C-alpha cells in the first residue's frame, strides 16, 4: 500500500511516502516560508523521486490540527481534494500526536507543544505503552502556567516535544524541575513518515466532510458568543 502523508500545520512542511511497510521518502523543511507555493511541488517532486505514480497512491494521511489556521487549511484542502478526485481514502491524525510520536523510547509522559501566543499553547498528553503511542489527555488550547501546574501533579518525567516547547522551557523547568525534559532538536520536527504510519490502519473518512481541527473558535465567533451569551 502506498500512503501519501501531508503536514502543514506549523512552519514545518512535511511530505512523506510510505510503501508497503517501508518509509520510502520524506521531504521536510522547517523554515518560515509560504506553504501554498511549495506543498504541491514537494508532493510532485517526492512522488517522482520515489517512482510512485499519482494513481498508485492508495491512501492519504493529513495532519489535521491543531496548528496555524491557514497552514492547516492548505494541507487539508490539498489532501481532501486529492483523496476525492483520485478516489482514495483520507484519514486525519492529530498534528500534536505526530510530534509526540518522536519521543518513541522515552518512558515518561510526552507533551507536544505548539505556541498559541499570549501565554497559551496547544498541547495534549501522550505516552508510549508496549511500543504504541497512547493518548493520556486530549489535545487542547491551554494556558502554559496551568498546564505546567497540572503536569506537576503526575510527579513523573515529562518530555516536551516541538520547537515551540523551547519558548516555554523556563516556565516548565521552574514548575517541574528535573521532571521537565526537552526533546533534542532532531526530535522537535514532526516526521512525515511517522504521520503516514500513524494513519495507516485508521479507517478512511469522508473526503467531503474532512476539515481541520482548529481546537479554537474564530475570534469573531468567540466574541459573538460572548456578547450573546445571556440572550
Amino acid at each position, binding site marked *: 500500500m502506498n500512503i501519501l502523508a501531508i503536514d502543514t500545520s506549523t512552519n514545518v512542511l512535511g511530505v512523506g511516502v510510505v510503501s508497503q511497510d517501508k518509509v520510502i521518502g520524506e521531504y521536510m523543511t522547517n523554515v518560515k516560508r*509560504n506553504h*501554498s*507555493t*511549495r*506543498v*504541491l*511541488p514537494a*508532493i*510532485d517532486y517526492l512522488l517522482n523521486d520515489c517512482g510512485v505514480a*499519482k494513481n498508485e497512491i492508495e491512501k492519504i494521511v493529513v495532519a489535521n490540527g491543531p496548528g496555524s*489556521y*491557514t497552514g492547516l*487549511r*492548505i494541507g*487539508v*484542502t*490539498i489532501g*481532501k*481534494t*486529492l483523496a*476525492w*478526485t*483520485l478516489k482514495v481514502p483520507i484519514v486525519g491524525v492529530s498534528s500534536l500526536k505526530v510530534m509526540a510520536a518522536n519521543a518513541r523510547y522515552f518512558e515518561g509522559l510526552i507533551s507536544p507543544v505548539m505556541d498559541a501566543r499570549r501565554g497559551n499553547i496547544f498541547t495534549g498528553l501522550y505516552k508510549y505503552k508496549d511500543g504504541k503511542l497512547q493518548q493520556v489527555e486530549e489535545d487542547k488550547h491551554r494556558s502554559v502556567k496551568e498546564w505546567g501546574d497540572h503536569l506537576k501533579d503526575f510527579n513523573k518525567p515529562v518530555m516536551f516535544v516541538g520547537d515551540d516547547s523551547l519558548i516555554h522551557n523556563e516556565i516548565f523547568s521552574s514548575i517541574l524541575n528535573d521532571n521537565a525534559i526537552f526533546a533534542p532538536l532532531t526530535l522537535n520536527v514532526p516526521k512525515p513518515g511517522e504521520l503516514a504510519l500513524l494513519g495507516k490502519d485508521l479507517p478512511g473518512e469522508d*473526503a*467531503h*466532510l474532512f*476539515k*481541520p481541527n*482548529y481546537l479554537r473558535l*474564530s*475570534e*469573531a*465567533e468567540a466574541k*459573538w458568543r460572548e456578547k450573546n451569551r445571556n440572550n
Partner: protein
Amino acid sequence: MNEQYILGIETSCDETAAAVIKNGKEIVSNVVASQIDTHKRFGGVVPEIASRHHVEQITMVIEEAMNNAGIEFSRLSGVAVTAGPGLVGALLIGVEAAKSIAFAHSLPLIPVHHIAGHIYANRLVTELQFPLLSLVVSGGHTELIYMKEHGHFEVIGETRDDAAGEAYDKVARVLHCPYPGGPHIDRMASEGEATINLPRAWLEEGSYDFSFSGLKSAVINTVHNAKQRGETIKPENLAASFQESVVEVLVEKTIRAAKEYNVKQILLAGGVAANNGLRTALRKAVAELENIELIIPPLKLCTDNAAMIAAAGSVFYEKGIRADLTLNANPGLDLESFNSKLIN
C-alpha cells in the same frame, strides 16, 4: 472544432463556486454555495469564517459541478481558478483545490483575475465585440476597463476610496438594513423619491475615476443632523437620493468614456450590476447612443460565480496562459500587469 471544457473555481470572498463552461460561452453547470446566512449575524464577511466554510464546501461544490456537467476530468481542457484579488485565506482554498485537481489529472492550470471573470460573465450572454468598455461595480471594485481585444485590460478609471458596493453597505447600515444591504437600498430607492440633495463626486475634469466616501459621509451627516433637529427623514427618500447620486456618476462617466474610446459594446459587471436603478439608468442612456450595444448579465452571473471564471479561463487557455503548481493566492493582484505579463 474540438469541444473545449473548462472547470472554473472561485472562492475569493464568501461564495464557494465551481462551474463547467463549454467553448467559452455555454454554461454546462454552475454551482454556487453562498455563505451569506453565516455572515449575516456579524454584519459583514468575516475572513476567517469564510475560509473555514470554503474548506468544508469546496470538494462538494466541485463534485456537483462535475456531476451536473456529466463529464469526466479527462474531458477537461483545463482548470481555471481565481488567483486574486480577494480575501487571501478564502482565495487559497480555491487555488489549492484547483492545483490539486490539475496535478491529479495532469491538466493545464489557468490563473484568472477575479475582475476579468466578472467581465467575461458577459460572454456567456453575447459574443464580445472589441473595442469594448466594461463598468465593473461590486463590493470591492468600481472600475472602468477598456478592452481592445481578448485578454487585454486597461483600467481607465477606478475608485480612489470606497467601492460603490462598499458605500451601499455602509449606507444600508445607517438605515438599519440587514446585511447584505445593497439589494435593500435598491428596493427602498424604488419606493422613494430623490428629495434630498446629496453630492456627486465628478473629480477633476476629464477624469474617469470615482469617489464615494464623500457621498457616504453626506448620508451619515444628513441622518445625524435630522436626528438633532428632531426631524424624521423618510428612509426610502434617502435611499433614492443616495442611489441617484451613485448611479448618475457611474452612468455619466461610462457614457463619456464609451464615446471617447469609440467602443462597440458597454458591459456591466460585478455584484452591483444586479442593482435595478443602475441597470435602468444605463439602459436608458445607452439607448440614446448609436451603434453601441449594452450587455447586462442575468443576476446570477453578476454576483460571484465560477462560470465567469471558467469563461475567462477559456479565453486565457487559448492564449496560452498557464500557471504551475507554485501558483499562490494574491489578494492584491493587479489586472493590467497580471494579464499582460502572462500573455507576453
